[in-house]
């Protein structure tokens, strides 16, 4: 294990986080809020730690898969701890575990909160919450790679561990350029959403926060009723952008390269949009005019399906009161999640596709034991390694799910609450059902449950392995 390199990367990570915190500090100055001191103190502590850690440059910048996983795993824990400081120091969230929960929920783009009355919180703190979504969405290490020449050529392992999806590839030969392109598109789309929201009449502060939150597919809102209070136009705009941020960013790069046909042929994109549309339609029919007309039903249904499937977690209506069938569809969409290589969470559409294809293939081979079959996706044969990793991911996912549910059940909550709470955490969605429902918050959970939730959110965002590997003895053996 290259500890020196790890120390160096984490040092830069803390410095970058401190720099990011300057933005909410500026917001605090604008609104003349006391939280300014909390931010300045956090920045000071962060800079102190960061500069100490990067003081000595590591000689050996060699990085392998193991280092990639471990650095990303630890980085995200450190990121969350430092990100929790403003909540704690400003007195918004006096409890350490709660502050950490809020911070993890922010960076992992979950959007589950422990705050009861959001509107009473200072604006700069609200801004920091939304901004953590934006930082965590595309991945902070990818950002560092875009700006800093980190570790020679091997930092693809960092990107592999931090980005989502079963097989990660670069857009262009150079890691740095790839990271720059990704963040460029991310940034441009965020700005675009802000502009559209402003034109639609949203107040400036709201537009900025909603955009950050949507871009990272996070779900922190700045109103107690999430997005329910905004106009239908604004809600529809957010629906569209949630769907857009749930798409693999490689597709946008293809479009930028004027390969629109190739982009539209992508089977994951088609299935993703298909599921979104199908689920919206089914839910809208099932709502049976709950919102007055079929059109209103469709609009509500589309928002909620998009919100849950892209793992954003905004709400416009308490879907806990919706018919049972609709709730089931929403939970299923939550589990499937967004596209690989997007900012969204969940199992990912492409993994579900591969799992189904594997299932069909296995059924075929069990009938014709001599038949040779290979799995194809987007016109390419998928290597066995990828299939294996998807299968193992699924097993690990289920194992984590079961264990988390068991621990959560100690809180004496009902099964639906526990199940959907865990699902909302691992898939980084935010709200679940009943006690974990859209109008509830997680303040009532026990400390143990909150810690489990924190672990699940991080594991879910990093797609399990970078976090699980930290607990494998062989990782630390010399």
């Amino acid at each position, binding site marked *: 294990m290259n500890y020196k390199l790890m120390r160096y990367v984490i040092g830069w990570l803390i410095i970058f986080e401190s720099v990011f915190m300057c933005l909410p500090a500026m917001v605090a100055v604008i609104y003349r809020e006391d939280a300014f001191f909390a931010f300045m103190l956090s920045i000071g502590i962060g800079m102190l730690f960061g500069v100490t850690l990067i003081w000595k440059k590591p000689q050996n910048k060699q990085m392998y898969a193991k280092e990639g996983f471990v650095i990303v795993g630890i980085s995200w824990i450190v990121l969350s701890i430092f990100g929790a400081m403003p909540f704690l120091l400003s007195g918004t969230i006096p409890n350490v575990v709660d502050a950490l929960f809020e911070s993890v929920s922010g960076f992992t783009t979950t959007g589950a909160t422990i705050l009861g009355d959001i509107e009473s919180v200072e604006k700069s703190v609200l801004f920091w919450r939304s901004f953590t979504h934006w930082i965590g969405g595309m991945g902070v290490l990818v950002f560092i790679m875009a700006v800093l020449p980190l570790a020679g050529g*091997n930092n693809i392992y960092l990107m592999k561990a931090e980005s989502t999806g079963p097989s990660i590839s670069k857009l262009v*030969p150079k890691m740095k350029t790839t990271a720059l392109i990704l963040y460029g598109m991310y940034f441009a789309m965020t700005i675009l959403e802000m502009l559209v929201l402003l034109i639609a009449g949203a107040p400036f502060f709201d537009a900025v926060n909603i955009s950050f939150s949507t871009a990272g597919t996070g779900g922190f809102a700045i109103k107690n009723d999430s997005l329910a209070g905004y106009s239908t136009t604004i809600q529809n705009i957010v629906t569209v952008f949630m769907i857009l941020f749930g798409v693999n960013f490689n597709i946008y790069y293809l479009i930028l390269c004027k390969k629109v046909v190739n982009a539209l042929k992508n089977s994951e994109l088609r299935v993703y949009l298909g599921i979104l549309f199908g689920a919206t339609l089914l839910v809208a029919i099932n709502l049976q005019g709950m919102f007055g007309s079929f059109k209103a039903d469709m609009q509500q249904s589309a928002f909620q399906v998009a919100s849950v499937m892209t793992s954003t977690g905004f709400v416009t209506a308490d879907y806990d009161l919706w018919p049972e069938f609709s709730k089931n569809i929403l939970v299923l969409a939550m589990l499937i999640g967004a596209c690989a290589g997007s900012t969204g969470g969940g199992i990912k559409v492409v993994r579900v596709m591969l799992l189904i294809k594997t299932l069909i293939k296995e059924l075929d081979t069990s009938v014709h034991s001599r038949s040779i079959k290979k799995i194809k996706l987007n016109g390419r044969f998928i290597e066995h390694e990828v299939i294996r990793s998807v299968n193992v991911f699924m097993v690990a996912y289920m194992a984590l799910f079961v264990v988390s549910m068991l621990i959560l059940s100690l809180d004496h909550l009902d099964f639906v609450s526990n199940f959907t709470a865990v699902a909302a955490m691992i898939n980084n969605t935010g709200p679940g059902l009943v006690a974990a429902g859209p109008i509830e918050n997680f303040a009532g959970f026990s400390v143990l449950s909150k810690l489990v939730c924190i672990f699940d959110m991080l594991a879910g965002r990093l797609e399990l392995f970078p976090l699980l590997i930290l607990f494998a003895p062989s990782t630390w053996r010399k």
Partner: protein
Amino acid sequence: MKIIIAGCGKVGQELAEQLSKEGNEITIIDTRAKIVNELANRYDIMGIVGNGASHLTQAEAGIEKADLFIAVTGSDELNLLCCILAKKAGDCQTIARIRNPEYSREATYIKEELGLAMVINPEYAAAMEMARVLRFPSAIKIDTFAKGRIELLKFRIQEKSVLNNMTVMDISLKLHCDILVCAVERGEEVFIPRGNFVLQEKDVVNIIATPKNASGFFKKIGVVTNQVKDTMIVGGGDIAYYLAENLLQMGIRVKIVDKSRERCERLFELLPKAEVICGDASDQSMLREEGMERTASFVAVTNMDEENILLSMLAKKKTDAKVITKINNIAFNEVMGGLDLDTIICPKIVTAEYIVRFVRAMKNSIGSNVETLYRIIEDKAEALEFVIRKQSDVVDKPLEQLKIKKNIVVACIYRNRKVIIPRGYDSMQVGDSVIIVTTNTGLNDIDDIISR
């Protein structure tokens, strides 16, 4: 620069590593997914699985925007096809590796007819490198600048040499030689020597001089400078053939030893002047019988690296001959340095160096300033040739007044066909070719040599 490399064999991997380290945007293509993925993880490059000669694959690799396409797959025909298609699809230069001697002989024709920028044959290139060393056996390696008018020579100080315990300054003062010692390797370390640097036995010294001055210098320190009289080549592959052909033309007697009778007969048909011996080189008494102990040079070019190393060590022990060892996979660089072998030549590295040099020249026309670059010691020191095209801080000032960075030496100035080994009062001028030797790798511009 955007470069596509088709084929990830030995040369392809070497190229991917070196060119990506120099900051080019590399995309590799190979049909073997495993190797492609491995390389894409190891270096900052992009990998594409597919056939390099397929247009779709080339398009995926971004052939439209590529500056250079290098085809180094295992098959000559495939390489040519790759290049033809690449040339058609994108506006790029193409380089093909062609190793079949039959095509190789027609390399110039192929190159011109198909519009290739460069055709390279690794075996031929390696053989030429060997021939160059045999022409000047005291040197381990010879590189040339300014179209051969300046040479960079590498040699090892022998026991009882006059250079032993001599300071670098004394070379010009006592020996009256107009040469410059630009780098000294001692063990694993590399020094850019100052005037008071004391040379020691077994140091590997790099000097820069004109060919004439270099041979004068070697005469004065009592080293044979004439080309070898005869040579014994063990292993009868393509390298042996190219080398023998070249040596025979220079009037050097050649003896080739190979196990296979068929190959021996074929070699004899091709090289009637050479003495071809069919025998197993691991049989020492046979080698002795064939005059190994009396040979002036010994070249081990069998297919097995281990055999080559052992044969060379044997030759080194039993004879005074100049020994050249061919090694295909230099993976144990550090160990090999301790073996006291004379010259080690690795075809894949020679090939990669040729191509890298071409890439640099191409880049040069785009922006960067380096004309030629040689690695003196892998990753530790390099010699760069710059052409000064415009006025700058370093121009027209005596060298002693320039604040030149540590570990950089201005080794040579080439002006109007005149070679100047610069002293403190000399200055660089616009239009000069200047050779810089440095242990700070990554110089891009002549202005980078001064500290600010």
